[in-house]
Structures are given as C-alpha cells and as structure tokens.
C-alpha cells in the first residue's frame, strides 16, 4: 500500500522537480513513465517472491510428472520433450498472468494509471514487460535444465532457448488481453484459460516445430522468423486491446 502511495506521489512530484518553469502542464516523458511503471512492478514482485517462484515450481513439477506418467524410456521422452516443455510453459505463464492487473485493480492504482495523462499503451507495455521479466525470463533460464531431464536432443538446446526467448513475450502480451478482460470478474481464473489458451496455439505449433527441426539438424530460422512476426504483431496490437479491455473492466 505504501508503495502505491509512493509511486503515485512520485509521478506527481517528478515533473515539478524536473521542469520547474512549466508546472504540471508538461507530463512525464514517455521513457520516464515507462521506467517508473516498470520499476514499480519489479519492486512489488521482489517483495512477493512467492509470485515469482510458484509458477516456476509449477513448471518444474508438471514436467517431472510426464516421465512418471509416460515411462522413463529416453527415446519416447526426447520425442515428446519439446511439446511437454512448451505446454508446461504455456500453463505456467497462464498461472502467473493473474497477478498482472489483479492487485492493482483491487487497490485502485490501476484506475489511477488509466486516468493519468500518459498513453495507456505505454503503461500497459511497461507492466507486460515487467511481467515477462518476472515470469518469462526465469522460465527460459530453467528450461535447459529440464530439457536435460527429458533427454532433449543436444542439437535442440539452442532452438529451445531461442523459441522461448521470442515466444514467452507473445504469451505475456496475448495473456494480458485475457487478464484485462477478466480482471473485474470475481472468478476469472478458469475463464482466463478458456479465453487465452486458443490464442496460444500458433506459438506452440511453431515453437515445437522449430525444436523438432533443430533435432534433425536442419535450419529452423523459418519457424523463428514466424514466431518473431507473431511477437512484433502482438507487441504492436495487444497493448491497444489491453487498454480498451481495461477501460471496460474498470468501467
């Protein structure tokens, strides 16, 4: 709570400090506003470390369940490893999405953000970026370790990391639309998965295919290019949808 107050206060104070001759009519520069929201979200996340660790634990546990369910044969596991890792990544992202706007919605800081003079696009982008840093990045760091557990083909490690690097931001961006739509609803959790998972299908298809192709020693730049296209497409369009959805949700 105090942090909210601080950050809101600092947004109000900063222009007065930096641009003394033009009081209050000159808003924060775009970069400043972006950094401020990013920093605030990261600070909050650092103070609730559970939120970072729990999706990661979920990711690890889901992946350990598969060999137990399917059997320990290395050949089978390495065949299905890309799919398992990516599906687990989708689910882990889905679990962590909830905290993207929920707490801000509860304490009212989301509404303040929407009322601020900065473009919503920017603020939303900062929040999504923070979310990706908190959930996507740890996932990428731990994925190679899990790939070892699943006997993933050695050629595929690069593809795995690259697809996760390009794909997880897409997950965060598309997921943000779903969260923004459901943030005002009390039992939004299950609904969120219904809304968001169908949209994740293209990323899943191209990412797993890139990893499979890499395992055969073939070039996988085509799939990567398509994931990159999905990334830039969602980067440019999703924040608009999120902004519109947040306006509906906060009414």
């Amino acid at each position, binding site marked *: 709570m105090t942090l909210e107050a601080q950050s809101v206060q600092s947004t109000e104070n900063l222009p007065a400090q930096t641009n003394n001759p033009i009081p209050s009519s000159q808003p924060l520069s775009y970069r400043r506003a972006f950094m401020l929201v990013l920093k605030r979200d990261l600070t909050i996340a650092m103070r609730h470390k559970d939120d970072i660790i729990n999706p990661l634990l979920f990711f690890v546990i889901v992946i350990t369940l598969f060999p137990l369910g399917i059997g320990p044969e290395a050949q089978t596991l390495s065949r299905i490893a890309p799919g398992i890792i990516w599906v687990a990544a989708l689910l882990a992202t889905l679990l962590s999405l909830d905290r993207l706007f929920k707490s801000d919605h509860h304490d009212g800081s989301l509404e303040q953000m929407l009322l601020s003079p900065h473009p919503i696009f920017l603020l939303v982008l900062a929040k999504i970026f923070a979310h990706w840093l908190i959930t996507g990045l740890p996932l990428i760091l731990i994925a190679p370790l899990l790939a070892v557990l699943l006997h993933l083909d050695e050629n595929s490690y690069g593809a795995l990391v690259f697809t996760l690097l390009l794909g997880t931001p897409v997950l965060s961006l598309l997921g943000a639309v779903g969260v923004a739509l459901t943030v005002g609803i009390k039992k939004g959790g299950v609904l969120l998965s*219904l809304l968001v998972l169908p949209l994740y299908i293209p990323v899943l298809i191209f990412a797993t295919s890139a990893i499979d192709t890499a395992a055969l020693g073939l070039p996988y730049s085509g799939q990567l290019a398509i994931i990159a296209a999905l990334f830039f497409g969602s980067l440019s369009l999703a924040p608009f949808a999120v902004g519109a959805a947040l306006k509906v949700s906060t009414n």
Partner: protein
Amino acid sequence: MWKWLHPYANPEVSYHFTNKLLPWLSALAALFLGIGLVWALLFAPADYQQGHSFRIFYVHVPAASLSMGIYFAMAIAAFSSLVWQLKLADASAAAMAPVGAAFTAIALITGAAWGKPMWGTWWIWDARLTSELILLFLYLGVIALHNAFEDKNLAGKAAGILTLVGVINIPIIKYSVDWWNTLHQGSTVSKLGKPSMSLDMLWPFIICFIGFSLLVGVIICLRFRNEILARNSIRPWVRELVQQNTVK
C-alpha cells in the same frame, strides 16, 4: 445510407423491423431447406467413391462455412459497437454467439460422422477439423465471458474486444494449423475438389446452403428480438407490448 440506417439504432424500431422480417425469412428458409434437403438427400446422385455417406456433405459444408461466417458477422457487430457505441450491435453479437457455436458443433459432429466411413475413425487431426475445434473454443470463450459479467453493457463490450482479438487470430491459427498438419502427416486425406463437383450435386448444395443461411437468419432474428426485450425490459414500450400480449 446513414440516414436510412439511423432509425434502427432505436430498439423499438428494430424490434418491429425484426418482427416484420421474421415471417418472410422463416417462410423462405422452410422453402429452401425443404427443397434443398429433399433433393440432396433423396434425389441427388450418390458419389461414385463414397456412396451415400457423401450426402452428409450437404449439411456439413454449409454448417462449417456458416460457423466461420457468423464469427465474422460477430466481429463486424463488435467493431461497430466499439466504434459507434451502438448498444444494439452488442445485442446482435450476443444473439449470434450461441448460434455460431451450435453450427460449429454441427460441423464437427457431421465431420466426425463423415470421417467414420471415409477414414475409418471418428476423429482425425485433420487441419480443417482442428481449426474448427479451435473456432468452437473461441466461441465458447466469447459466450463464457459474456455470461461472466452481471452488467450486460459491460459484457457486450468485453466480449466485443475478445471477438476482435479472435478475428485477428483466426487466420493465423488457421494457417498455423494447416502448416502443422502438412508437417506432421502426409496428404492422407484426399481433398474434395469443389469445382469438380457435377451440376446434379452443385444445385442441391447451393439450395441447401441458402436454406441454412436463411435458417441462421431466422434464429438470429428470434434471439435478437429476445435480447432487445431483455435489455429494454424497463422501457414503457416493452411493458405495453407485454400487457397487450397478456390481455389476448
């Protein structure tokens, strides 16, 4: 054109308009479906390879293309509701969603029933079937989101945004699924070439298609009427209408 369209933004006017439209639409739908289905199911020649099981095509294909068409219609309604703040556009999108979901389900079920004699299995991860299944999920998402909101105005807006996000994603999903399908399994599924269809089969198909489209129109009109009444239940003209009907 705008001047001509403007009165229909009023719920009362569009209610009476749908009232007038309904008998015509339903009569035409009954006519076309009656002729088309009888012709298609009884008199059209059987396919030389697939025999009579081919006849499900006369239901399956219209259902499949209408399921896509209804989603695009929903997207257009959602877009006009977001841009011009038309509340009735929300109502029409809400009226269309379950119809679209039902037609997607029909397309899936008839597809499975067709697959059994053709491929020997109920379900095959064929590109078109898979994307139809995903379309069903998108429909269900829109309906679920619509039901989750208490306030129908908010529900319409939220569902509208989701519909628009979905409509951008549908081509992407479709192409990725097509691509995934060609990658994972060879061309085991023989494609039914539409242009090579003979005229004896094409005519009943066209009539069936028009009939099903009209049927969709009728159902949507009925649902749209109910949506208007439900959303305007406090208005005096609705109360008058109810009173008139109860007196009779």
